[in-house]
C-alpha cells in the first residue's frame, strides 16, 4: 500500500470517528422528522464541528505562545529575578513546553477513548491489509483528530521563541524540543488511555469500594490539568526559586535543567547567546537532549503501533458473580444523580469535568495557603477561588446533560418528568460548587481575616449558581427534544455549547459583579449580592420548572 492509499484510508477512518463522536449516540433515538434529512449531511457536519474544536485548541496554543513570546522579550522587567538570562529564557521556554506537553496529553487522552470506542479501526482487521499498513492508517487517523493543534505548536512556538529572544537560531533550536514534547505527550496519552480503558471504563463491580477505587484512579486523569494550572499560577515562584538556587545551590538548578524538557529550553536559549558562553557549557545539555531524542525515537516507534493495538484491547473484566443483593431504590431525582455519578466514575472525560472546579479551587486555595499573602490579599485570593468555582461549575454544566444523551432513547421511555431531570442535574452542579467552595474554605480558613463573611459570600452566591444551572440544562433539554442534536461533549460541539454557557455564566456572574463593582445605596454589597442572586433564581426557576408532568 503506498502513502497515498494510506492517507486516503486514514481519511475514511477519521471521517467515521468524527461522525460517531457527534452522531452515533443517536442511533435508536427519537428525533424530529427533519433529522433523517439532516442526517444525510451528517458526516460533513461532524467534520465541521471537530474542525471547529481543533481550531479552538489551536487558538489556545497560539495564545500561550504569544504570552511566552512576551515573557521572553520583556519578562525580566516584570520578574525581578537573580536568574541569569540564559537560564531565565531556558526556564520560560521549558515551562511552555511543560504546558504544551500537558495540553497534548490531556487532549490525546480525551480523544483516545472515543477513538477506541468508535471501533472504526476494527474494520481494518477484517480487510486484506497487512499489519504495517493497518498500524500506519490507524496512527494517521488518530493524528488527524488533533493535527491542527500539533502543527500550530510546531510552527508558532519556534516563531514565538525566535521573536521573543530576537534570534532565528533560538527559534529553530526549539523545534526538536517541540517534536519530542508532542511525541512523548501522545505516547503517554495512549498509554494512560489503555490504563483507563481497562481499569475505569470497563471496570466491573458496583460496590462502594470499587466506586471509590475508580474515583481514585480518576484523580490521575486530572494530573495534566493540575500541572498546567500549577505551572501557570506559580510561574513567578518557580522562576524565583530557580534564581535563588543558581546563586545558593547550583546542584538543584542542574538537576531541574537535566529533567525533560529543560535541556531543550536551555539549548534554545543558549543558542542565542552562543558567542558569549564557552562551548563546554553546551556539552551536558546537548548530551541530555540527545538522550531524550533517542527516547523520543523509541517512543515514536511504540506510538506508531499504539492506536491499532489499543483498538484490540477487549474489556472483559470481572468475574461472574452471583451477587443477589436487592436493588436499592431511591427517589427519581436522586436516582438520576446517582446514575450520573456512576457514569462519570467509568467515563474519565465526564469525571474530569466534575473534578476540574475542585482542582482549580484546590490550586487557588493552595496559592493562598502557601503564598502567605497579607490578610487582605488572602481574602481576595479566597474570593477569587470561589468565583472560579462558580464560573467553572456553570461553564461545565451542559456536560452533565451530555451524560443523559448517551442513553436518552431509553431514558425517554421511562416515566421521568422534565422537572425531575432538570432538578437532578442542577443538584449535581450545586454539589460541585459547594464541594469546590469547601476545598477553598479548608485551605484558607487560617489565612482569611473574616472567615464567616467569606462563608456567607459563598452561600449567598448559591442561588445564582442554581439559576444558571437551571437555565443551561433547561435550554439544552428543550433543544435536544426539538432537534435531537446530541450535546455529547464540549470537544465536539464547542460553538453551540458556548451559546448555552454564555447566558449561564452571565447569570452566575451577575451577583459577583454587583458585589465587586457596584456601590448601591441602602444595603451593604453582600446584601445586594443576595438580592441579585434571588432575582436571578426566581424567574428562571418558574420558567424552567413549569409544568409538573411534562415528559422528557
Amino acid at each position, binding site marked *: 500500500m503506498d502513502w497515498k492509499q494510506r492517507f486516503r484510508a486514514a481519511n475514511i477512518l477519521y471521517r467515521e470517528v468524527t461522525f460517531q463522536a457527534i452522531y452515533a*449516540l443517536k*442511533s*435508536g*433515538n*427519537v428525533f*424530529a*422528522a*427533519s*433529522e*433523517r*434529512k439532516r442526517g444525510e449531511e451528517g458526516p460533513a457536519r461532524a467534520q465541521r464541528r471537530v474542525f471547529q474544536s481543533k481550531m479552538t485548541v489551536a487558538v489556545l496554543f497560539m495564545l500561550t505562545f504569544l504570552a511566552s513570546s512576551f515573557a521572553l522579550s520583556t519578562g525580566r522587567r516584570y520578574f525581578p529575578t537573580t536568574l541569569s538570562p540564559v537560564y531565565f529564557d531556558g526556564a520560560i521556554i521549558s515551562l511552555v513546553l511543560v504546558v504544551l506537553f500537558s495540553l497534548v496529553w490531556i487532549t490525546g487522552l480525551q480523544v483516545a477513548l472515543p477513538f477506541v*470506542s468508535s471501533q472504526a479501526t476494527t474494520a481494518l482487521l477484517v480487510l486484506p491489509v497487512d499489519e504495517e499498513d493497518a498500524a500506519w492508517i490507524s496512527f494517521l487517523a488518530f493524528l488527524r483528530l488533533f493535527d491542527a493543534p500539533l502543527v500550530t505548536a510546531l510552527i508558532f512556538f519556534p516563531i514565538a521563541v525566535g521573536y521573543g529572544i530576537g534570534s532565528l537560531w533560538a527559534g529553530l533550536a526549539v523545534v526538536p524540543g517541540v517534536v519530542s514534547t508532542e511525541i512523548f505527550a501522545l505516547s503517554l496519552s495512549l498509554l494512560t488511555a489503555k490504563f483507563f480503558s481497562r481499569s475505569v*471504563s*470497563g*471496570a*466491573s*463491580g*458496583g460496590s462502594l469500594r470499587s466506586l471509590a477505587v475508580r474515583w481514585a484512579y480518576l484523580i490521575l486523569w486530572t494530573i495534566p490539568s493540575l500541572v498546567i494550572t500549577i505551572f501557570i499560577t506559580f510561574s513567578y515562584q518557580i522562576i524565583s526559586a530557580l534564581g535563588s538556587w543558581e546563586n545558593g545551590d547550583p546542584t538543584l538548578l542542574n538537576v531541574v535543567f537535566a529533567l525533560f524538557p529543560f535541556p531543550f529550553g536551555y539549548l534554545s536559549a543558549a543558542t542565542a547567546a552562543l558567542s558569549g558562553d564557552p562551548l563546554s557549557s553546551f556539552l551536558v545539555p546537548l548530551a541530555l537532549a540527545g538522550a531524550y531524542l533517542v527516547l523520543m525515537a523509541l517512543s515514536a516507534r511504540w506510538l506508531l503501533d499504539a492506536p491499532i493495538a489499543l483498538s484490540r484491547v477487549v*474489556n*472483559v*473484566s*470481572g468475574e*461472574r*458473580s*452471583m*451477587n*443477589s443483593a*436487592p*436493588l*436499592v*431504590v*431511591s*427517589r*427519581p431525582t*436522586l*436516582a*438520576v444523580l*446517582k*446514575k450520573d455519578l*456512576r*457514569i*462519570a*466514575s*467509568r*467515563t474519565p472525560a465526564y469525571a474530569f469535568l466534575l473534578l476540574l472546579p475542585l482542582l482549580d479551587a484546590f490550586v487557588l486555595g493552595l496559592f493562598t495557603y502557601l503564598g502567605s499573602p497579607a490578610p487582605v490579599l488572602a481574602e481576595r485570593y479566597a474570593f477569587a477561588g470561589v468565583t472560579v468555582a462558580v464560573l467553572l461549575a456553570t461553564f461545565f454544566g451542559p456536560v452533565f446533560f451530555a451524560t443523559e444523551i*448517551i*442513553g436518552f*432513547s*431509553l431514558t*425517554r*421511555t*421511562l*416515566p*421521568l*418528568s422534565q422537572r425531575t431531570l432538570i432538578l437532578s442535574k442542577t443538584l449535581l452542579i450545586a454539589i460541585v460548587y459547594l464541594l469546590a467552595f469547601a476545598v477553598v474554605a479548608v485551605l484558607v480558613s487560617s489565612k482569611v481575616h473574616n472567615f464567616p463573611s467569606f462563608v456567607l459570600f459563598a452561600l449567598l452566591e448559591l442561588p445564582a449558581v442554581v439559576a444558571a444551572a437551571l437555565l443551561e440544562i433547561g435550554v439544552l433539554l428543550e433543544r435536544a427534544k426539538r432537534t435531537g442534536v446530541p450535546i455529547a461533549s464540549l470537544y465536539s460541539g464547542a460553538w453551540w455549547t458556548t451559546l448555552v454557557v454564555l447566558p449561564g455564566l452571565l447569570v452566575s456572574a451577575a451577583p459577583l459583579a454587583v458585589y465587586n463593582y457596584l456601590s448601591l445605596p441602602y444595603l451593604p454589597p453582600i446584601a445586594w449580592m443576595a438580592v441579585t442572586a434571588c432575582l436571578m433564581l426566581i424567574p428562571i426557576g418558574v420558567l424552567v420548572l413549569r409544568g409538573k*408532568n*411534562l*415528559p*422528557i
Partner: protein
Amino acid sequence: MSEAPLQIEGLRVTYGDVVAVEKLDLGLREGEIYGLIGSNGAGKTSAIKSVMGLLVPSSGKVRVFGKDPVPEGIFTRSVTGYVPEVSILYDALTPREYLEFVASVRGLSGFDDRLVDFTLALQIDGEMDRAISTLSNGTRQKVLVVSALLHQPRLLILDEPFNSLDPRSVRIMRDLLGAYVKNGKRTILFSTHTMEVAEKLCHRVGVLDRGLLRGEGTLTELRQQVGLPSASLEDIFLELTTDREQLSKIVSRLEAA
C-alpha cells in the same frame, strides 16, 4: 368498559420526503400477543416509536389505554414496558446499576423475587456487576427485556426482541412472553422479521410492507385472505409483500450465475 391497550387510526409517519408509515389502522385487545412483521425498512420501528410517543406522527391518531402518548407521555411510559430495536444502554453502568435506576424512576418496591426469576431465566444473574460495555449484544438485549418487565407493564412493546439472542434464549423468551399474557390482563406488541417465532407466539399478526398494512388477523384468517389454506406465515408474508414471479426470476438468475 376498559380502554383498549392500543388503538391506531390512519397513522402516517414521514422523514422529510420519505414516507415510513402510511394509513396504518391497528387495534390491540387485552391479553393478546400481536406481532408486527415486515422486512427491513417496512415501518415497524416508526410505528412502534409513535406508540411510545417518541415520534410525533405527521397525521393520524394513536391512543394507549385511551390516551395520546405525546402529551400524556408520563402516563404512557408508566403503563408500558419498551425494548428498543437497538440495544443502546448506559455503557458505563452495570446491569444492576441500570436496573436500580429504572426501578427508582418507576418508584418500584417488592420486585426482588421477580428480578431474581427474570435474571435466572434469562441467565444473566452472573453478569449483573459487569460494566455493560463489556457485555455481548445478546446479554444487553436480555438486560433491556428485564428492565421492561420489572414493573409488569399492562402493555409490553418489543422491537425486534429476538435479534441478538441465541436459539436457547429465543425459546426461553418465547415461553416467558407466552406466560406473561396468561392472566389475560396484559398485552404484548412486538415486531419481528422472524416468521417462525411470530407463527408460534402471536395470537394475531399484522403484515407491514413499505409503510402499508398488507394484511392482519390470526393465522387462519391470513390463510383465507391469501387463499392458501395450509400456508405457513412465511408463505403468507411472501404472498402479501412480494412479486413472486419476479422473485423466481431473480433466484433463477442467481442459480445460473
